[in-house]
Structures are given as structure tokens and as C-alpha cells.
């Protein structure tokens, strides 16, 4: 039986995997895609509750989230291109100019 709990479970799994992706991967593309995954999970959760309460508001919010994700995609990818141009590498661990300890 599909209940609220199963939809909530799926959305929380997506969200958690998104968080794990941000922590565990060094590749900047994968980090970005994990962030999108988190937004996806939240969207699913919102829509589930929209259906649960027959309220339109969460769906509108979902639309806004998708719009913002689109805008973010544009800027994010431009920055990835800039970073790639300056260091010719996709590793996030090498951008440590702001550190107080050992400089990279």
C-alpha cells in the first residue's frame, strides 16, 4: 500500500543520497548533481503533501524551486568553467587559498 510514509521514505532517501554525495565526492560536477538531487527530494516531499492535503501551495513552491534550480544551474556551470580554466582540475580539495593552516 502506498501511503504517505512510503513517499516520504523515497524523498528522504533521495535527499540523504544527495547529502552523501556532497560529503563523499571530490569531483565538482558530482557535487553539483548531488545538490540537484537534494532539491529533487524536497520537491517530491512537497508535492506529496500537496496531494495529502489537497492544497495548491506546495505545488507552487515546487515550481519556484525548479525555476531557481535552473537559474542556479546557469551560474554554477559558469563558475565551474572558470575554476577549470584557472586550475585545469576538477578537484574541489585543491582550492584552499582561504585556509589558515597549510596553504595549497
Amino acid at each position, binding site marked *: 500500500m502506498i501511503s504517505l510514509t512510503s513517499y516520504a521514505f523515497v524523498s528522504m532517501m533521495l535527499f540523504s543520497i544527495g547529502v552523501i554525495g*556532497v*560529503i563523499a565526492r571530490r569531483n565538482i560536477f558530482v557535487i553539483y548533481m548531488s545538490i540537484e538531487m537534494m532539491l529533487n527530494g524536497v520537491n517530491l516531499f512537497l508535492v506529496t503533501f500537496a496531494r495529502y492535503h489537497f492544497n495548491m501551495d506546495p505545488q507552487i513552491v515546487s515550481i519556484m524551486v525548479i525555476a531557481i534550480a535552473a537559474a542556479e544551474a546557469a551560474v554554477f556551470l559558469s563558475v565551474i568553467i572558470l575554476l577549470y580554466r584557472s586550475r585545469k582540475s576538477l578537484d*574541489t580539495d585543491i*582550492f*584552499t*587559498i582561504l*585556509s589558515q*593552516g*597549510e596553504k595549497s
Partner: protein
Amino acid sequence: MSTSMLVWIILSPLLGSIVLGGLYFYHIKKQEVNERTFALIGCVTPLISFIITLCLFLKMSDEKIIFKQHLFTWLNIDKLNIDMALLGDNLAIFMSMFVTFVGWLIHIYAIGYMTGDKGFGKFFAYFNLFLASMLILVLADNPIILFIGWEGVGVCSYLLIKFYYGNKENVIAANKAFIANRVGDFGFLLGVVTLFFALGEVDLSFGTIETNVSNASSGLLALAGFLLFVGAMGKSAQVPLYVWLPDAMAGPTPISALIHAATMVTAGVYMVARFHFLYSGTEEIGLFIAYIGAFSALLAAVIATRQTDIKKILAYSTMSQLGYMFIAVGLGFYSAGLFHVFTHAFFKAMLFMGAGGIIIALHHEQNIFKIAQHRAQLPIIKFTFLIGVIAISGIPFFSGFFSKDAILAAAFQEGEYLIWAIAMGTAFLTAFYMFRMYFIVFVAPTKHKVQYVYTSMTITIPLILLAIGAVFAGYLNLAPIFGGEAQVDQWLAQLNSKTIHMSHAVEWILIILSVAVAAAGIFVAYKKYAKFDVEKPEEEVGLIGNKFYVDEIYHAVFVETSKKLSVWIDKVLDDKIIDAFIMNSSRGFVNLGKKVSMMQNANVRFYAIFMLVGMTCVFIYLISTLGL
């Protein structure tokens, strides 16, 4: 003559020392001052002290009064009250009489001895300072002021022993003297403190101590008596703190004569007599003092039989005679002990001055065998030396006989037969080694052609004056057995000393025994040394010749352990433990800071992890409180 003259006995040499010191600075910095100026000031000040003392003495014997002079109150804290006060009673004036007289004569002798030395003025400044300190010690009204004088004579002894400071060994000897004295002084100070606690809240002048001494517990009083005697052990060179006295002979002979024969070393005996009310009540401590004195006398006499340095023989004989004095005061015969101090001052000072005369006549040669090899003809010195040696051996009609005999009789009367036997043995050895010295230096045949050497008047006249004293001073305390009136004993009646009251027959037997023992000693010395071949000198070898290795033992036990302890504290405790502790704690903080700063490494994922971990903790908390 009033009471206020009392302080001038001390002030005269004290001011003299200050003036001489200032003149000496002027002499070395600006312009040369003639030796005669120093000599004049240096010798007038003890004479002034002596004259004042004499006048006070005459007044006291006329009117039977004592002088007390309160100068100012030094300390007044709660229960402790120390006045700067001087007490001129019979005992103090007695001591001050011969201290100033012998001191004055030795000052005159020092003019001749120290001529040509570039530290002439400095010598007299120190010498006067010494005399002032000794007079403070003698005229003090309470133990603290006595201690000031006590320390003062220690300091002056140090300054004068290392007078020829160019030679490093002299400085080491001076250090040894000062440090050994210091150990004794520590005991003395503890004794005064114990006395203060034992008596409760009194001001510490001798009069009040005397009246209150019966209130105190006898255990504390015994402890105080013992600790005060530790001070006397250091000052008067008794076992175990005697090791500085032979080394102190490194100083010029006038100071050996004054300080280490007549005055400073007798300060211990004076102190025990001054505290007579304390020691009369604690018989065990007195007996302990007597045994220490007997043992020191015997030890010194044994060591002296093998010494070859003329001044060291005389130093050990001083230690031996001091042992006799302590036997007397330890057993309660205070006036007999002080009488021996009095006669000893005369003949010992004379012996030292004679030895000094020989030394400078032979250009600072001190080994008796070498002196014999290069003998010069010094008639007056030889004559006075002979008188001194006879006096110290206890031959009848000379002063030493009367004073020593009184002590031997005292030991026998108290039933301390062991002490009496030791004292008799020491008398034999005393006669032996003194005459050994006399025979080798003056009598034994030498191949050298003997020439006459002139000695100046400043040396011979004090010698003759002291010789007169050495012969006739004994008659001042002629015991009743000889038909005298014992004037010194009567003068010192305040001390409540015990007196000799044996049957006359026993006393005569004791006198004949002691004379026989002394004569035997002279006979053995004559047999062995009158015809000694001085080209083959005796060496200081063997157990006795090496002074029973006491110096080496002290060095190994005390000096080496202190050195090792300080090296250990420096290298281990200071460097490795304390410094390391401080450095490590500061380094630990720096390292901790470095490790914490590694958290700010601009690694975005690292920051993200931390944020998430924080949020997780919040969620865990929520789960636990909401009870899901």
C-alpha cells in the same frame, strides 16, 4: 667615670677602624699616607679602650657596683624586645681588661711585623674592627647583641686570614673558617630562638633570662644549652667544627696571636660562662661539654706531636687548651675556666709573637726543621719562647701551672675520672710536643753557622711584657692551698662557680702527679729531640701525620655531596623537570593551536561535513527528547 663611658670602650676602636678605612682609600686613590699615621691611629684606639676599662675596673672594685648602659631600643615587636644595651659587670670587665691589654700589645707588635706591606693601613682598619666586635661581644647585655659581636669577629677573622689574598689557598682557608663558623652560628641562633620560646614573653637581656630561667621546661632549656654550645664548638674550634683553626694559620702572625689564641676562640668559653644560670641547671649538657672538651684536647695534642709547621703546632695547642677550658666550664667551674683563659691569653699570644719573630727573621720560613737548619741567633725571642713553653706545660711557679692544676683538680673532684685521665694524658703530650718544638728550633745541633739577627723593638718589648704576665699572672688567683686568696674567683663570684674543696692531702697528691707527668713529657722530648739530626726532617706521614684524615672525610661527606646535589639540581631538576614542564606546557599550547588552526583549511566539503555533524547532534537530541 660614669656609665656613659662604657660605650666608648667599643666606639674607640670602631671609630678608629672607620677612620683608618677612609684613610686607606685616600692612600690608594689619591696620595700616599705615611705608615706612621696608620700605626699611630691603630695603636692609640686600643690603648684608650684599655684605659677606660682600667678606670671602670678601679671604680667597680672600690664601690662594688656594676655598669649598665642603655643606648637605644632596637626592636620592639609584640613580645620580642631587643635593646641595644651594654652590661659592664665583673665578668665583662674582667674579659675586656685582658682583651684590650693583649690587643694593644699585639697592635704594637703588628707595626713591626707588617712594615713594608702595601696593605698596611687596611690591616690596621680590619684589626681595629675586630677589636671593636670582640668588645661588643664581651660587653653585650643580651644574646642578640652578643651575636652581633660574634658574627663581627667571624667576619674580621675571615678578612684577616685572607689578607695575603694573592695566594689562592689563603682565600680557601678563610672561606673554610667562615663556613665552619657559620655552621656553629646557625646552632647559636637556634639556641637563642629556643630560649625565647622556652621563656615566653620576656625581653631577652641576661638579667631577665637569669630571673626567669626557672619557669621554663627543663627539656627546652637543655636543648637551648646544647644549641648554644654548637655555636661555641664552631667559634672555639672544638670537635667536630675545629677543622678551620689549623688552616687559619695562613694569615699573618699578629692575627694568629690575637684572634686565634687570645680572643676570638675564647668567645665560646665566655659565652658558656655568661649563660652559667642555664648550664648550672642542665647537668647533662654540662657533662657533654666537658667530654667534648676532653676529647678535643686529646685529639689536638696527638695531632700536634707530628706537625712540622711551627704555627700549626701552636694552633693545635690552642685547640687543646681550649678543650681544658671547656672541661672546666662544662663541669660548673666557671671561674677556673676563665682563669685559664686569662693565663692562656698571655703565654699563647707570646708564643705566637715569638714564632712570628722567627718567621720574619728567617724570611717567612715556617717548617721547624728548615728553621733549625738555617738557625739565627735571636736571644730575646729564645728566652721568652722558653718561658712560654714552660708555662704551657704546667711547671710550678709559672702561670699555666696554677690554672691547669685547678682544672685537673676540678675534674677529679666531680668524680669524672675518665676526663681526669684524658686531661693528664693530654698534659703529658702537651709538655712533649711543646718541648719538641723548642728543642728542634732552638737547641738541636746544626751545621749552619749561627748568626745574630736584629729584631726591632716593636717586637721585643711586647714579648717581654707578655712574658712578665705569663710568669706572674698565675698569682692573681692563688688557690687557698698555696696560701693565696683567689682574687679572680672572688671577682667572678656572680657566676656561682663550684670551688675546690678536697682534703689538702688529696690535692697535694694530684699536684705532684701532674708535675710528674709534665716532667716525664719534657724528659721524653729531651731524649728524642735535643740531639736530633735536623738534616733529616720528620715528615707528616701516617695516620697521625695526616691529622686522622678528618679534612678528607669532611670533604668527601659534605663538600662532594653538596656539589653533586647542586649539579643534580641544576642539570636534572632545573633543566629537565622545571624548565621542561614550563616549556612543554607552552609548547603544548602552541601545538594545540596549530592543530586547531588546521580546521580552517578552506576545504568546502570539510566545512560541510562539520555543519552536518552539528545538525546531526541536534537531531539526535530532538529524537531523544521527543521520544520517537
